[in-house]
Each structure stands twice: as structure tokens, then as C-alpha cells.
């Protein structure tokens, strides 16, 4: 049978962000896959060397518009580690609150994108409608819907006042009530199962070999979650449960994420009732003593790694950002061959790619 090349991207309705897939297709089956990235490469790592630590706070939030708070948190933690500053307990808790709200919004966004890819526009609409409540909550606390600007080096800028806590509580309740729909979708909806079960299988071996992290890895049976394995900020006392399943297909990824939304809601609620008292931030100097720091945190898509080298000046000598999408992409390259052409969209959308993160 003759082979044709099916190019997807850089502009394609499946991709919210540009990347290019070149798929060799025989009939309705994919036989080879090439992935090209870099369309969003802005050179942020070098940009950050040319800006001061303070200016970089703006830059890191603009690496990715979906997990902006995760980037800011990782960056702040790295600089704080270099400074030897411990963040006040209240600040650590508010950071985690934003991390979890961001996880809720990111996972709902992903569910919507996946649903749209399998032609289920209603779920896309509903998921994004519930997502608004998480965005509203973050906006009311920090003033930013997408780029929150909640973090400071040394603490946080935004406080959860009692009246904001009440508003947050009602937003969480709304999301929780409507989450039942997505539970039903994952657990019972036949038409969803038909398009996701047994599709895009990723074995535990592949996950290990490519270093895949986050919900993608947890859907294939790897239980790695930085929040539990190397707790940071307030996770040392929060200890979220880690949902793990072994199917390794797109359905399992949906299952893991819907569970995680529930756990995130529980963490937020726990934080509202047991938010430590105290100051919001420590005063920190502009100059950072020479040293190196490696920080890992659990972004919505998995382990996010920041490496910062300082040289006793007011701007970093080297910042390295490794985002969870990169290993996912490498693994995706090996998952795509063998798929039906009709499943490409499901698998690519189901991988929760964030090109802005991956390309930097």
C-alpha cells in the first residue's frame, strides 16, 4: 500500500500552539512519526541571564500561560534556596493554594481540549465553564486570571483574607458539584470509552526510558509525584494522595486527572481552614551570593526542574528550565506509529502538550 505523508502543524486546529508532526500514513494506519518543535522558542534562558532576579519574576510567568504560577514558584524557590531564606509558613501555604487552583484549571482545560479532539464539544464547553470558577478565584486573590503575579522572592504578594476565603470556598463548592459530570464521563460514558480506551498505550518501560513525568506517567503505573516524594512549600504537611493506574491509555490519563482535580479541591479546602498566621514575605537582598540550586516542583503536567547558578550579582549567571512536556514529546514520537489516523488527535490532545513550556 502506498505511503502518504500527513503533515500536522504548525498551524492546525488540533494544536493550540505550533509544533509540527510529520506522519507517514499507510491507509488508515500511522507507520512513522517525526516531531518538530521550536516554533515557540524565544530564548528565555538567555533572556533571564540578561535581566535581574526581580525582572525575571515577570519573565518566568510568561514562559507558559497555563502553568505560570508553577514556573514562578520554582524560580522563587530556587532563588530563595540560593539566598538561604526560608519562606514564612503563610506564604508557603498560599503558594500551594495557587498551585492547586492552577492544577484544577489546567486539568479542566486539558479535559476540554481532549473532548474537543474526539468531537465531544459539549464536554469542552462544560469543562471550560467550570474552569472559569478556578480562574475567578485566583483573580480575586491576586488580581490576575492567567499571569497571577502571586509570588515574590521571599514569599507571596497576595493574601487570602477571610472574605476572599469565603468566596474561594463557594467557588470550590461549585466546581465540586459539577465535577460529578466528568466523573460520569470517565467512569460510565460509552462513547467516551470507545474513543479513549486502549488508545495511545504507553508502557511503564517507555515512561522510565524517556523520563516521562506527571499525570502521563501516573497513568502508566509510575507513582512519581514531587509533592509527595520530595515535599516542598506546604506539601510537607499536606500530603496529597497520588492516584496511579496502570492502563497507560488516554482513558487512564483522563481518570488520573479527574481524580487529581478532586484531591486538589480537598487540599484547597484544607488550606482555607488551616491557613497559618504570620507575615506574607521575608525581605530579601537584590544581590544573590554565588552558588548553584536545583529545584523540582510538581507543575500540573509533572516535574518541573529549575537550575539556577548565581555569581554574587543581581542577575543569574545561568537559568535552566526543564518542563514536563519535553519527555512527553519524546515518548509521543514512539507512541504515534501504529495508531489509526482517527486516533492521532485523541493521543496528541491527550498528551497535554505545552509547547510554550517545551520550547521556552
Amino acid at each position, binding site marked *: 500500500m502506498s505511503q502518504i505523508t500527513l503533515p500536522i502543524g504548525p498551524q492546525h486546529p488540533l494544536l493550540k500552539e*505550533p509544533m509540527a508532526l510529520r506522519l507517514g500514513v499507510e491507509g488508515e494506519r500511522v507507520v512513522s512519526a517525526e516531531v518538530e518543535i521550536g516554533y*515557540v522558542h524565544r530564548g*528565555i534562558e538567555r*533572556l533571564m541571564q540578561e535581566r535581574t532576579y526581580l525582572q525575571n519574576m515577570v519573565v518566568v510567568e510568561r514562559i507558559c*500561560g497555563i502553568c505560570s504560577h508553577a514556573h514562578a514558584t520554582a524560580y522563587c524557590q530556587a532563588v530563595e534556596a540560593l539566598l538561604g531564606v526560608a519562606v514564612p509558613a503563610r506564604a508557603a501555604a498560599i503558594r500551594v493554594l495557587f498551585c492547586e487552583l492552577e492544577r484544577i484549571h489546567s486539568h479542566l482545560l486539558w479535559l476540554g481540549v481532549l473532548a474537543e479532539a474526539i468531537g465531544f464539544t459539549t464536554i*469542552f464547553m462544560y469543562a471550560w465553564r467550570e474552569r472559569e470558577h478556578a480562574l475567578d478565584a485566583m483573580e480575586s486573590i491576586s488580581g490576575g486570571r*492567567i499571569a497571577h503575579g502571586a509570588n515574590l522572592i521571599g514569599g507571596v504578594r497576595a493574601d487570602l483574607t477571610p472574605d476572599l476565603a469565603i468566596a474561594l470556598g463557594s467557588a470550590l463548592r461549585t466546581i465540586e458539584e459539577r465535577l460529578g459530570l466528568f466523573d460520569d464521563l470517565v467512569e460510565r460514558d460509552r462513547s467516551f470509552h470507545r474513543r479513549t480506551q486502549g488508545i495511545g498505550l504507553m508502557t511503564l518501560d517507555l515512561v522510565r526510558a524517556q523520563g516521562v513525568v506527571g499525570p502521563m506517567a501516573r497513568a502508566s503505573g509510575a507513582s512519581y509525584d514531587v509533592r509527595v516524594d520530595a515535599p516542598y512549600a506546604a506539601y510537607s504537611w499536606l500530603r496529597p494522595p497520588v492516584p496511579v493506574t496502570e492502563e497507560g491509555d488516554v482513558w487512564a490519563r483522563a481518570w488520573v486527572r479527574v481524580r487529581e482535580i478532586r484531591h486538589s479541591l480537598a487540599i484547597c479546602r484544607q488550606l482555607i481552614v488551616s491557613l497559618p498566621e504570620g507575615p506574607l514575605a521575608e525581605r530579601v537582598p537584590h544581590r544573590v551570593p554565588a552558588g548553584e540550586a536545583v529545584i523540582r516542583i510538581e507543575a500540573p503536567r509533572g516535574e518541573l526542574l529549575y537550575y539556577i547558578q548565581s555569581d554574587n550579582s543581581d542577575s543569574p549567571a545561568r537559568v535552566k528550565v526543564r518542563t514536563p512536556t519535553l519527555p512527553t514529546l519524546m515518548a509521543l514520537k514512539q507512541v504515534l506509529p501504529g495508531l489509526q489516523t482517527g486516533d492521532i488527535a485523541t493521543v496528541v490532545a491527550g498528551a497535554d502538550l505545552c509547547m510554550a513550556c517545551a*520550547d521556552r
Partner: protein
Amino acid sequence: MLDRVVRWARKRSPWLLHYNSGGCNGCDIELLDLLTPRYDAEQLGILKEASPRHADLLICTGPVTLKSREPLLRIYAQMPEPKWVVALGSCACSGSVFRDCYHVMGGIDRLLPVARYIPGCPCRPEATAAALKDLLESL
């Protein structure tokens, strides 16, 4: 007369094509958000189209990375006249924080004629909707 009918129709049927030329994703999801229940841009006749051939408005986000240059020009060339380019977000307007990066051109207007600039980092869906409505009124 015919002219007025056509103008009436154009104002009410803007089909979008979205291209991210290297932005952070923030504006892109806010644009997509415009289609969802809270904002529902379909009221304005806005549809998000899959093919450049079907589109009237090219909504561009991002500061135009060097690698995005070619695809952007190609997409614009594929769109049938009359067509308009909208620069969505501060990056697309001027390059914003990425202005001087080695892989960035800085602003959609370096490449294409821009009909509307919508600043914001990222732009809220309300701002986008208002600017698009304004653009359509001015046609």
C-alpha cells in the same frame, strides 16, 4: 445597495483563524475561552475555523519567533480577500518582554499589516470581544 448588503453580512460573520507565533499560551487559551459558555462569541457570528481558506480574520498571538515567520506568511497568503490581521496580546503588538530575544522578531506588524492591536498580557476575553466588535463596526 449590494455593497451595503455585503457590508452587513461581513460585519456579522467574522470567521477566525488563530495562529500562535510564539506566545506563552495565555492569550491563546483566553481566545479559546471566548467561544465557551461564559463569553460565547458565537453571538457575534464568530466561528473558529480550521482552514485559512475559510477565514476572514487572522488572530495572531506571540512575538513572532524566527521559526514562526514562514508559517505565518504562508497562512496569510492562503487566506482569501478581504482579510484582516488582529494582533492579540502585548507580545503580538510589540514583542513585550521578549522584544530583544535572539529568536524573536518582535510584533506581528514586522511581517503583516495589522488591522487591530489588542494589548494585554494576557488579554482578557472581554477585551478581545470588545476589540473585535469595534473592528467589525469600523468595516
